């Protein structure tokens, strides 16, 4: 069952079209990535999905309930983690959590224990009673996320949650997201980090200029743009003899040789590689090293939009 369904979302700020006909769906337990550069329209899309920004067109339902800026029912299903840290600096983490817990409608009796649980999850148990203005950037980020987890939402929306975070905090954030996905939460994750999208997301939408350019699993996206694996071989002996021997193989699209190395473009490196090594042996060319480079979303993005993900 789909937790989130949205279609035809559009938003313009005066002349500027920020989001144009965006639609997708996310199933329970699925992590869906919105991958796009700065200004692509990720935050605008998410704001409309969370019911905090009036859309010009389109429809959003979460767990079967329609979301607009005027509805509140469906909002209980959403945990929204904004891109910018949205916490009171002069309150403690516990006070921030209690405050938003009340707004999420968590019953009084379970609020205290739930706040403790979340503090534990985000690793702030021992700093829970300090004012958040005394926190490090990473600690603030974790609290920012924790608030969105309070009410155990069916849909967790994370807007670039790892920006400005040290590698350790970043890793713990990514691990938490993976765990949430496994526990059945639908996750909408925006990022302009290709590696994060590849690691976390079951499906990814490439968004640019307010439009979704392509959508699918990583494999699907790669295939969609006709990207191939690259095998780099380090050779001992004549690279040219190897090139000659391999040229007849149909799986090989392109092969180029340098002094002591050969670069081979293939469909599906894993199935072709054993045969290539076999041919090398038959041709009496020694192989000193093998490297397989699978195409990534970065290259998909480049192919689709003609520009790099990060400028």
């Amino acid at each position, binding site marked *: 069952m789909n937790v989130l369904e949205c279609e035809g979302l559009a938003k313009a700020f005066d002349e500027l079209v920020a989001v144009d006909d965006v639609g997708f769906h996310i199933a329970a337990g699925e992590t869906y990535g919105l991958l796009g550069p700065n200004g692509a329209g990720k935050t605008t899309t998410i704001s409309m999905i*969370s019911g905090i920004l009036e859309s010009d067109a389109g429809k959003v339902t979460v767990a079967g309930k329609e979301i607009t800026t005027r509805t*509140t029912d469906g909002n*209980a299903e959403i945990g929204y983690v*904004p891109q910018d840290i949205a916490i009171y600096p*002069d*309150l403690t983490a516990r006070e921030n959590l209690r405050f938003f817990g009340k*707004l999420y409608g968590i019953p009084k009796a379970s609020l205290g224990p739930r706040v403790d649980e979340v503090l534990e999850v985000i690793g702030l148990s021992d700093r829970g009673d300090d004012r958040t203005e005394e926190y490090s950037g990473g600690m603030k980020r974790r609290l920012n996320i924790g608030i969105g987890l309070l009410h155990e939402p069916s849909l967790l929306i994370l807007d670039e949650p790892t920006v400005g975070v040290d590698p350790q905090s970043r890793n713990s954030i990514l691990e938490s997201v993976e765990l949430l996905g496994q526990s059945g939460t639908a996750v909408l994750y925006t990022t302009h980090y290709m590696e994060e999208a590849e690691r976390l997301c079951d499906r990814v939408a490439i968004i640019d200029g307010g439009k979704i350019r392509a959508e699918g699993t990583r494999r699907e996206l790669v295939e969609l743009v006709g990207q191939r694996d690259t095998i780099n071989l380090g050779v001992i002996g004549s690279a040219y003899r190897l090139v000659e021997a391999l040229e007849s193989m149909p799986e090989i699209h392109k092969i180029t040789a340098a002094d002591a190395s050969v670069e081979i473009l293939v469909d599906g490196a894993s199935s072709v590689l054993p045969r290539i090594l076999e041919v090398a042996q038959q041709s009496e060319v020694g192989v000193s090293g093998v490297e397989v480079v699978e195409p990534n979303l970065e290259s998909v993005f480049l192919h689709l939009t003609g520009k790099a993900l990060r400028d």
Partner: protein
Amino acid sequence: MKAWAITTTNIKRLVRDPSTIFFVFVFPMLLILVLGASFGGGFTPKVGVHVAGDGVYAQGFADQIDANEEFESIDYSDSGALLEDVERGIVQMGVIIPANYDDTLASGGTATVEYVGRLDQSSVQYRASIEAVATDQSAVFGAARIVEGEGLADFDSAVTAAQLVASGPGGSEVVVSTTGEALFGDIGQFDLGAPSNLILFVFLTSLAGSAALIQTRRLGVSRRMVSTPTSIGQILLGETGGRFAVAMIQGLFIMVGSAVAFDVKWGNLLGAGVLLVLIALIGAGAGMLMGALFDNDEQAGSMGVFIGLGLAALGGAMFPLEVFPDTMVKVAHITPHAWAIDGFAELIRHGGTLASIATEVLVLMGFAVVLLVLGTWRLRAKLTH
């Protein structure tokens, strides 16, 4: 209720900030104290008394001034020092009783007592009291002189006898009462300053407090609130409640604090309470409007102080409306301040009730409704666009 959670969080944040504590609670009370002490009408004036000789009657004159509750009398052994202190305002007036006072009286002459005051209105008022002492003494000495002249007793014993008669019952006494309205009324020294300060500070805090609202918006906390299952109506109600609560807490503190510490009489309690609630509502509405119109909290904070002081000056919360020319009094009434001050003046000076300030209450209600509607309307738009 979710609005309540937002309101209480507003209050929690306020009381946690030491600088607001100072400006919201300590500063207004200090100002009431300072203004009351320097400009208030009813404090005990000090009279410096220099007795040049060592005559018994001269000392009697000084003792009688000392006995007068209206004054605090201070003895000066040096007339030069006394004159200087009068000039510097350390004492409000000086009385110099010459060395030959007793001798002149005993020889049947007219003794002169020198009164030194400054050229202000209160000086004239004080002089009357000192003159009353002189008149008292003259009566005693006049009577004694008659007794002495009849050969019934010597001057000194005649004076003693006359003094006994004067302090006993009988004779005539002038009891003073007033009619009409005095410029600065016959009221406690803090009574007028306190309401003006209340209005001034509640507005100042409300307007400057819009910074907190802008900060909440800029931090994205407001948008985050919208993302929760909380209606925008509840959020607006909560934020308005927060502004209102802060204004009420401050207003109540100033009211109760000034009543307890400086004995300020606020008049009819119901009337004063209604005025306070309306002032707080208007402050809340103005704060919401500022909070929606400005996007920069520091800018709003300083503009708030600027507008707050400007409105207070215009509306008579800094200088009494009585000293304004007529047209300015009319202009002053475009501010809620002037109406609120009128209301308090009616309650405090004329023993007015809620009924007698109905006009002021209605006008203030109008201010409150307009500002609250405008404020919430603009803020609602800011939250979802």
